């Protein structure tokens, strides 16, 4: 094979994402096929939505027949961390026009990590390098999603219990959040709010209600902290 230095560098750096996205995308596809819809819808989700945790969540929401508003809010919240990716990437954006918007569209956890952690090889244009990394990552994801959904609909293998990838993924992300934050209080508060909502208030709209409750607690905590900060004449952290 005769690869240009640009393409060779893109393939080499994106290899870990290939090994991550093929199995994870396939798991999404198999899970999606449990819903009984055509496998091409899984491809469409990988093409237009392109979000790991977000697409897994979408399967759960579809299975629970959630309303469109609940889906939109849950998706906004699960992806809210991306706001902070974008913030830190603003100064490193080397593309303009549609290239810039495609790169923003493709800003998944893995692409963000790759772009921020990989130095641009010497003699290679940073904008083109980042754009191709974004595009090849989405190709891996599309292959994974489509293959999983197609196989799930063709093969007669028992996929009972495969829905567990979803809580498993969220458990892993929770631990990652803890390693990052090193503060157990929000985790305990969320557990109490989540279980409390599930048991006492509503099974049907648990996610939305629990998120809104958490949001109000955070806002009150923020207001209280500012208030005491003003009273003591100093800034609290």
């Amino acid at each position, binding site marked *: 094979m005769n690869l240009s230095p640009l393409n060779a560098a893109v393939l080499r750096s994106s290899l870990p994402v290939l090994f991550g996205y093929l199995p994870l995308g396939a798991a999404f596809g198999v899970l999606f096929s449990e819903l009984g819809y055509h496998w091409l819808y899984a491809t469409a989700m990988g093409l237009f939505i392109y979000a790991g945790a977000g697409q897994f969540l979408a399967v759960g929401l579809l299975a629970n027949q959630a309303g469109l508003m609940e889906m939109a809010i849950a998706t906004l919240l699960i992806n*809210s961390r991306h706001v902070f990716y974008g913030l830190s990437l603003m100064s490193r954006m080397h593309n303009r026009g549609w290239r810039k918007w495609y790169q923003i569209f493709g800003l998944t956890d893995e692409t963000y990590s790759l772009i921020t952690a990989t130095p641009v090889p010497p003699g290679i244009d940073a904008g083109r390098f980042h754009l191709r990394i974004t595009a090849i990552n989405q190709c891996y994801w599309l292959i994974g999603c489509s293959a999983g959904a197609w196989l799930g609909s063709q093969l007669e293998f028992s996929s009972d219990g495969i829905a*567990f990838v979803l809580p498993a993924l969220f458990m892993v992300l929770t631990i990652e959040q803890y390693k990052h934050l090193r503060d157990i209080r929000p985790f305990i508060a969320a557990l109490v709010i989540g279980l409390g909502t599930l048991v006492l208030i509503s099974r049907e709209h*648990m996610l939305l209600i629990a998120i809104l409750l*958490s949001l109000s607690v*955070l806002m009150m905590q923020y207001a209280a902290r500012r208030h005491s900060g003003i009273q003591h004449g100093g800034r609290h952290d």
Partner: protein
Amino acid sequence: MTEFWYLSGVIAVLAAATFATRALPFLLLSRVADHPLLEHLGRFLPPIVMVLLVVYSFKNDAALSIDFVPELGCLALVAALHLLFRQALLSIIAGTATYMVLVQMGLG
């Protein structure tokens, strides 16, 4: 045909919501995103949402059913593996495979 329009609507809404979170800082000025309330929410909301999503999976009793006891055990396995090795894929695959075996053996 209703299925096509329903799923197209869902995909359009989810695509818009996902793109919105990624594009927001590029659309707003960083001055607004620097607001201490947003920093506060940005710090504590993601971990809370993750925990809530774990709890949310216990809610299902429809098509993609999750059973209580094996799920708790397998979640503990995922957590232990991830705390030990910190290999996301390993933790997810080992936990899911164990759960599938348990459920398919009728222990669920």
